[in-house]
């Protein structure tokens, strides 16, 4: 369980890192918190020619308010996110979900940018970012672009990021913090990859669902937004059981992916249970 040999680079600033990413003919991987990449390298599932360690790039480690959005540098670690006053003030949903991500030892190293870039379908944060209408900033040495979180994730470990690009920040509009949110995931052990999970948000805190977002995770190749469930809830009272049931039923018919331990039927069942419980646990 030793990784294959690789060239190790430790750039001190972003532009050096982006320059290093520009060799088209080599397999280059950026290293963020290393909580997934290091084991993958030791299993030789990942065998990069060059490893670009981003841990010295201070400009990627900040959480700042920039106008009407919060900018979270891609190298911000979960433990820092959790302790950030800005995040605590503006995005209680993120604060609520962080303890469900693995264990503190992993959160001490793992970064938001790393999780987003890896795009593990069982990860919590991609779905949370979709409900928060976040955008992912991608930089290369000659351009910077911003991709809506919903469009960013393409499949299992697959995103729209090009090989010469780096996720540099995750930007979330301050106004997008929903008035109400619910989160639920099913795991066999605390901190495990979820078998299924759901994030539900509503922009109205008073009586009725409004601008609802329903995103399921760990049940398909990427975060699964369920417009039919959203439609069923929108405009209806938070306690309207009929519309809630309709929203849960609307989960059926989506395409579910099995994992090693759970078949598609279980995935569907648990996606519905997660949604039901996420709605049942709405707070905020």
């Amino acid at each position: 369980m030793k990784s294959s040999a690789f060239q190790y680079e430790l750039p001190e600033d972003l532009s050096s890192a982006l320059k290093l990413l520009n060799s088209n003919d080599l397999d280059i991987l950026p290293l963020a918190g290393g909580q997934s990449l290091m084991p993958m390298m030791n299993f030789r599932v990942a065998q990069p020619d060059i490893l670009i360690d981003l841990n010295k790039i201070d400009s990627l480690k900040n959480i700042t308010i920039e106008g009407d959005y919060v900018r979270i540098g891609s190298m911000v670690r979960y433990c820092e996110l959790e302790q950030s006053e800005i995040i605590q003030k503006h995005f209680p949903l993120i604060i609520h979900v962080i303890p469900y991500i693995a264990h503190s030892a992993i959160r001490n190293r793992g970064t938001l940018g790393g999780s987003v870039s890896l795009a593990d379908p069982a990860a919590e944060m991609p779905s949370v970012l979709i409900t928060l209408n976040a955008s992912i900033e991608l930089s290369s040495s000659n351009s910077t672009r911003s991709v809506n979180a919903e469009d960013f994730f393409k499949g299992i470990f697959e995103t729209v990021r090009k090989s010469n690009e780096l996720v540099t920040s995750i930007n979330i509009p301050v106004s997008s913090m929903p008035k109400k949110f619910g989160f639920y995931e099913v795991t066999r052990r605390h901190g495990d990859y979820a078998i299924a999970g759901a994030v539900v948000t509503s922009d109205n805190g008073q009586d009725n669902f409004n601008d609802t977002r329903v995103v399921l995770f760990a049940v398909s190749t990427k975060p699964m937004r369920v417009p039919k469930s959203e439609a069923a809830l929108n405009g209806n009272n938070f306690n309207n059981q009929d519309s809630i049931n309709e929203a849960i039923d609307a989960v059926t018919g989506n395409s579910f992916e099995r994992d090693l331990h759970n078949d598609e039927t279980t995935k569907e069942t648990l996606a519905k249970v997660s949604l039901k419980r996420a709605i049942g646990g709405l707070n905020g």
Partner: protein
Amino acid sequence: MTGPKFSFDKPGKYIGQPTERPDTRRLLKGRGKFVDDIQLPRMLHAAFLRSPVAHAKIKSIDTSIAENIKGVVKILKGTDFIGIVEPYVGVLSHLAGLRSAPQMPLAVDTVRWQGEPVVMVIANSRAIAEDAASEIILDLEDLPAATNTEKALDKDEPVIHSEFDSNLAWERTVDVGNVDEVYARDDVVTVEKQFLFGRHTGVTLEARATIANYDPSENQLDIYYSGQAPHMMQFIYAKHLDIPEENVRVTAHDVGGAFGIKVHTYGDEIATAAAAKLMERPIKFLADRYESFMSDIHARDHVINSKMTVSKDGKILALEYDDLTGIGPFSMYPRTSAIEANQVLNLTGGPYTIPNYRANAKVVFQNKNMMCQYRAVGHPIAMALCDGLLEEAAAAINLDSVELRKRNLIPDDTYPTTSTTGMKLDDLSHQKALSKLIEMMDYEKLKKENADLKKQGMYRGIGFCSMIEVTNPSPMFYGIGGAPIASQDGATIRLDAGGGIHVASSVTEQGQGTNAVLAQVAADVFGVDMDRVQVTTGDTKTTPYGGGTWASRGAGIGGEAVYLAAEALKDQVLDVAGVMLQSKPEDLNIDNGHVIDNLSKEKRMSLADLARTVYYRGNELPSDMSPELIATRHFRVTDTPFVFTNGAMAAHVELDIETGIVKILNFWAVEDCGRVINPMLVDEQIRGGVVQGIGHALYEECLYSDDGQLLNTTLADYLVPMATEMPEIHVGHIETPTKTSVLGAKGAGEAGTGGAPACIINAVNDILRPLGVTNYQIPMTPNRLLDTLRSAKI
């Protein structure tokens, strides 16, 4: 013996006390010495290319690229070991009819399981060895794989060993009384269930590891070993590498968990030793986690069809089952892979009086990793089977299952007796244990609470198990069948010049606290403080000969040998003291490092003074006196094949019927392991065992694809029980010392693992049964429970 005997009438200073383990400070300070901590001069590192498929002919192996990688020193194939390693066969003569094919350390012409070592790369570092292994081209011709246990004996299933007519390795039938006569009665109720026990493995913190060092000038092989049975391995290396046994030294320093995984012969370890001999250089092999999952023995893998018949007034009349066990392509050497099924046949129903019993076990070969003895060999199967059927039967006759147990447990006042399957049972306390358990858990209150909560939509259940455990085995376990496995163990204790004592014992320490227990016994019986006791275990060169640690025997057998040696040393010391102090030895005693007057308790002489006189100033002693301040004693169980222990356990669980997730709310274990030498360590053994049993019941499973690919080889995919999910495990003790030894200690290491799965399975089924369904496939995963619940009446 001249001195006063140790008395168990009064509490000892150490025996019976929750004494802290002397080695914990060292281990917690990071000063442990595990195999990977050892660096030898000129040492090389090994990595293995393992078979990527379950069954194939080896057409060719191209190592040309790998050989040229800088830092690669040697590449060895299976054929390179022919003539170097004598093949080994995992059979024992007392398991009549057991067959297996000869094994070589690496596959020679055929690979028979995914993960079987095929090529060994030896290089200057493990990373280089892995680089080279990935450049080796294996040309394999796929053969059809036999992977389904239930089809293993079908006519059209591929036969794994061409010299055999089928994939049957062993079969045994037990038939006592007449079950058919019982079935014919019309006043009985019969319940029938299929039990499926998945494969799992023992995940040791320290993976398997070996360093082999060979010195040709003395024909000496030194093995640094992470395992349980140094003397057994000494024999195996000597025999199969053709080195005189006395020229093989096997040393185990700290061992990071073993659980039975590390008491077998693994091809990669034998190859490491053979290569060291061939190359005359030290070689280290350390399995990584991926290799551990693929090559550490797996456990269980049973398909059991069973039934139990009870009278309507609650007497168990008959038990019948067929057990099919898959063991991989070979029977493991030297313990064999038939012991598990044999234990199931021997132990099932052991706590109860069951007059009619018919069971058949078939052990079959498969193209999967090998299955062999892991903690609580056969016990979890036997206990889950009998107590699961018992719960079903209780429900069928509408009787509380605790009441059904009470009516059928072998009464405490009938020992010695014999179990239905012929096991000699003595000094057991099933009734006391069950009563204590019921009291500890407040059963009636809990039942009522469950019923009340069910009205609120909460599904809680209680599951029980009354169990027996094989401990302190005699030669009847392995030795009788020709295995190089000692059932006797020895202890040597010497008084050092400083007044402290040194204990050398042939039982071994894998993290469970054996050394502490040995020190407690030695300190108490001899009469010094524990901090004046040094213990050496795990070294074939410096300890007496013995079996090591397996089958819960460290305290019971190793502890007894220390007891006897400490008594003998005390007699020797008092003989010398008698002469030096002009007193009768029987008027003297040893306490707190001093020879004392037995009546007045007055100090007469320190042990240091005595020892220094003997060692340095022998001129002060009479010339006809030749004092010995070192004593060796051995102990083996002679009166009975095994010293059984018993226990009663219960689990309280909650099932989320929407998600299939089981939460364990509480667990209680009452254990009778005879004399408790260290209650804290016994509790740790019980709790640790229970946790592994919970892992078996809910989490752990080695999953294979139909074509024999192991699908989960990381700790992200193979779930071990974690602290967050574990309940409070309440441990209670009954002490019925065994009459087979002075100390009276039985084993405690495997009870939890043996009994916990049954409790969890039964507790979940206590919830499912009223819903019209049951599940006897473990682990009980959410996927399986949801599947079951789909046909439930909720």
